[in-house]
């Protein structure tokens, strides 16, 4: 099943705690495990508030205070435990081994610095560059991410550029450190539909050309098809289903995944048939007992409200499949 | 609205600085009221030849050049300073609210003239306006001092209130037009003023600290309440020539100013944070 080689990135039992204003602590990310291999794209999918962005921030120890990663969690980049890194060692990972692009390119660029100088800064954060070389490299990166007139754009300020161009700048900046992993947190949500496809295509092309692994975080299962190798579906701080993309699209095993599929708008279907999952993701202070999805689940059983389903491994010919649902048929016990 | 003001007070009270500020202020008020009758009359000069004596059991803060008890003068000074500050700030807040609502409500050239004048007035340092006004009197009566300080402190308040009136005029335009008839001045009193209550209370509190300092400054320049009525600024003024030989004559009244203003500002900042939690 799982390959014997060490994965590029392995997250085990990640738990993130925030102090609750009404006392105690809440856990918006509560026992997340996944792996990411070289050159593959893993999509982390879920509604907003399910903990996927916090998970990605924790990978670089960028949780907003006063959030903390609980002991017992582990994030391993090959042999290195990221969670035990501090100071310079941590800085050497950020941007250099794992780079990140964000949802809103309007706010992710510093408005008072030229875009060129911000890319140069990303270059020099990890290596010595002469001024001229850094500028030349930046312009080459601009070209690589498909920015027209790259030499002219060097001295532009962010407010001179369109949203799509800014996201390309962000990607150029992420490529500057030649990272092994690119985390893309809702990279197209803030962009026009036509620009969305271009950006996703660019990401896929760069992944193939550079052999990067991509962790694509999105709320939109529709974006995932044909772009991700594997999908992990998150709900209420946990991964509820994990499968190869083809597997998942052919036979989603978790009712939440099926619900997400039903809520994707399709052009050839009538809008009336679009049926979003009723309700919203509960707050971390009120995760339901038993299966966390049971209050919104169309196929709820009696035991769902009291017993948390186990993470069950399912039979497949593709990449490993797991699901957290009592309806899923468990593997026969091993001999 | 009353409820939201209560919430501001409660939130401010639950911060450490807010509590320190409020408790200190209450203590100062309590002391000023309760122990005043038991202290010697601060105006009487018991011994003209005695000179300043250092702190002792009989005179915990020492005595000044005319052998007057400094503790008694500091406590009496608290009443003078605090009442002048409170009255002057009440005056300037009312003036500011009146001018601000007028400008915001009428708009047009009324607004333009009023606000341009406020801009110009704010460019003149307040102390200089006060100096020009105060210099008229050889011995300024307390009421005139209150009027003069109050009349020079409303500029920022009027801008605050005007902004709120404009915001609410936009916000409630249709509803107000339907329910109350457009242009009813009642809107102002029912909606605008209650809405500015939080920021106004904060401005008033911080204004009290500012006025205590201003009043002390005028007294220090010899332009405030005339002797022998004790004022903190006046006591520091009297101590100037004695500082080298009798530093307690200036130390205690000055410390009284610092503690009072600090307490007022701590409480004011705590309320500001409660009104606008992002800056906490």
């Amino acid at each position: 099943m799982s390959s014997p080689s060490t994965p590029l990135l392995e997250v085990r039992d990640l738990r993130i705690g925030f102090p609750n204003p009404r006392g105690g602590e809440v856990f918006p990310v509560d026992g997340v495990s996944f792996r990411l291999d070289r050159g593959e794209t893993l999509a982390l999918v879920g509604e907003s508030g399910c903990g996927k962005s916090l998970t990605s921030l924790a990978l670089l120890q960028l949780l907003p205070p006063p959030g903390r990663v609980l002991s017992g969690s582990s994030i391993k980049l090959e042999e290195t435990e990221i969670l035990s890194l501090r100071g310079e060692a941590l800085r050497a990972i950020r941007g250099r081994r794992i780079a990140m692009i964000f949802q809103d390119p309007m706010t992710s660029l510093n408005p008072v610095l030229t875009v060129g100088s911000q890319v140069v800064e990303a270059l020099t954060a990890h290596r010595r560059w002469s001024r001229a070389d850094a500028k030349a490299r930046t312009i080459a990166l601009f070209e690589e991410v498909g920015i027209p007139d790259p030499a002219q754009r060097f001295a532009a300020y962010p407010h001179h550029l369109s949203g799509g161009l800014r996201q390309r700048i962000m990607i150029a900046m992420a490529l500057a450190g030649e990272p092994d992993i690119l985390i893309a947190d809702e990279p197209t949500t803030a962009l026009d539909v036509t620009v969305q496809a271009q950006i996703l295509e660019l990401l896929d092309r760069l992944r193939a050309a550079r052999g990067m692994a991509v962790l694509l975080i999105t709320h939109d299962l529709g974006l995932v098809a044909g772009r991700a190798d594997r999908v992990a579906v998150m709900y209420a701080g946990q991964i509820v289903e994990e499968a190869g993309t083809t597997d998942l699209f052919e036979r989603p095993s978790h009712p939440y995944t099926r619900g997400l599929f039903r809520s994707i708008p399709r052009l050839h279907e009538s809008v009336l048939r679009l049926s979003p999952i009723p309700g919203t993701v509960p707050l971390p202070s009120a995760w339901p007992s038993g299966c966390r999805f049971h209050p919104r689940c169309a196929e709820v059983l009696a035991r769902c409200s009291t017993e948390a389903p186990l993470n069950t491994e399912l039979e497949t010919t593709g990449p490993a499949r797991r699901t957290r649902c009592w309806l899923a048929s468990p593997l026969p016990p091993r001999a | 609205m009353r409820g939201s003001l209560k919430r501001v007070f409660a939130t401010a009270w639950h911060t450490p600085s807010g509590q320190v500020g409020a408790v200190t202020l209450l203590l100062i008020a309590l002391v000023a009221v309760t122990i005043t009758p038991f202290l010697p009359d601060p105006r009487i000069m018991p011994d003209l030849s005695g000179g300043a004596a250092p702190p002792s059991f009989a005179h915990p803060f020492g005595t000044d050049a005319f052998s007057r008890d400094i503790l008694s003068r500091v406590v009496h000074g608290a009443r003078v300073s605090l009442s002048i500050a409170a009255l002057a700030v009440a005056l300037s807040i009312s003036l500011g609210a009146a001018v601000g609502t007028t400008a915001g409500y009428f708009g047009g050239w009324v607004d333009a003239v009023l606000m341009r004048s406020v801009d110009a007035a704010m460019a003149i340092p307040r102390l200089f306006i006060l100096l020009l006004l105060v210099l008229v009197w050889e011995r300024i009566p307390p009421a005139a001092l209150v009027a003069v300080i109050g009349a020079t402190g409303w500029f920022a308040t009027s801008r605050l209130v005007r902004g709120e009136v404009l915001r609410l005029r936009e916000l409630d335009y249709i509803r107000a037009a339907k329910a109350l008839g457009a242009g009813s001045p009642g809107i102002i009193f029912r909606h605008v003023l209650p809405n500015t209550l939080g920021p106004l209370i904060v401005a008033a509190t911080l204004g009290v600290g500012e006025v205590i300092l201003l009043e002390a400054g005028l007294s220090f320049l010899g332009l405030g309440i005339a002797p022998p009525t004790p004022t903190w600024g006046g006591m520091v003024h009297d101590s100037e020539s004695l500082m080298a030989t009798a530093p307690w004559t200036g130390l205690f009244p000055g410390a009284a100013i610092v503690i009072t203003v600090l307490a007022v500002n701590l409480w004011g900042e705590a309320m500001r944070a409660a009104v606008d939690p992002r800056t906490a």
Partner: protein
Amino acid sequence: MIGWLIRRGLQAVLTFAAAIVILFFLMRVTPGDPLMRMTEDRQISVAEMARLKHRFGLDQPLALQFITFTSAAIRGDLGVSIYRYPDRVLDLIVARLPASLLLGGTVLLLNFTIGVWLGVLQAARRGQFIDRWLTRLSLSGYAMPSFWLALVLVYFLSTRWRLLPSAQMTDPLLDPSAPFAVRTFDLLRHLLMPAFTLAIVTIAATMQYQRTAMLEVLRLDFVLAARARGLTESQVRWRHAWRNALFPVLTLFGLWLPILVSGSVFVERIFNWPGLGSLAWEAINGRDYPLLLGTSMIVTLLVILGGVCTDLGYWLLDPRVRRP
């Protein structure tokens, strides 16, 4: 750029004009006239009084007085001092300007460097021990009357420990032909106490503004993005966050110049610093209205110019307000 400068300049001129109207009428609307007030305790004959009135133009109608006054002021003639008759007000002011600018500039420098640095530190350590105590300390400074702090500092640093001189700008016993370095050192020793007095009582505002502005900026996405890129903490804090958190502090300078000017009246008087503040004090003491009015006008002009400089700073530092 040119168009903007002209508009901003025009606005400043109008504000100054309105301020002059306010100042003039403040002085003349109050009961009595300046000569009455200054001559209350002197023996002056009626004829002499009339002659003086005529000399100062006080026998004219109010509107005419105002026109005479402003048209003279535009030509740079602020009238003649009463207390220091027959010195011209403008000459007296110009003579005091360098000392005031030196003191004010030093305070601005101290305030800006120390205040900004501490405010940024506070924002970075929000809610922690050092943040809470820096707020309390700066608020304590803010609560101090400058004249009292000056007296206390003089008591300790001059009277008791004899570390610093307590008055004047230079040592009167110092040979004026002494080497430049010696004279500069002497000037610095005299500058230290007045400058720090004013800096201590005003620094809280800079710190609070800087802290608040930094907190707002540190929340923004591009700060997180800069961290994710592997930049050092000081790059994130200064190059990215502070560059954006600087603008509110610039605005503060416009609001803050009046406080500095007022504070200098007390501090210059105590330290005998020969600037505009002590000139204002001499005008008060001598009941010299033309001199006080002239000083108020110059001080107002400085404040308005400070505001223009602030806007100019915005213009130069924020690429977003620059037209492409």
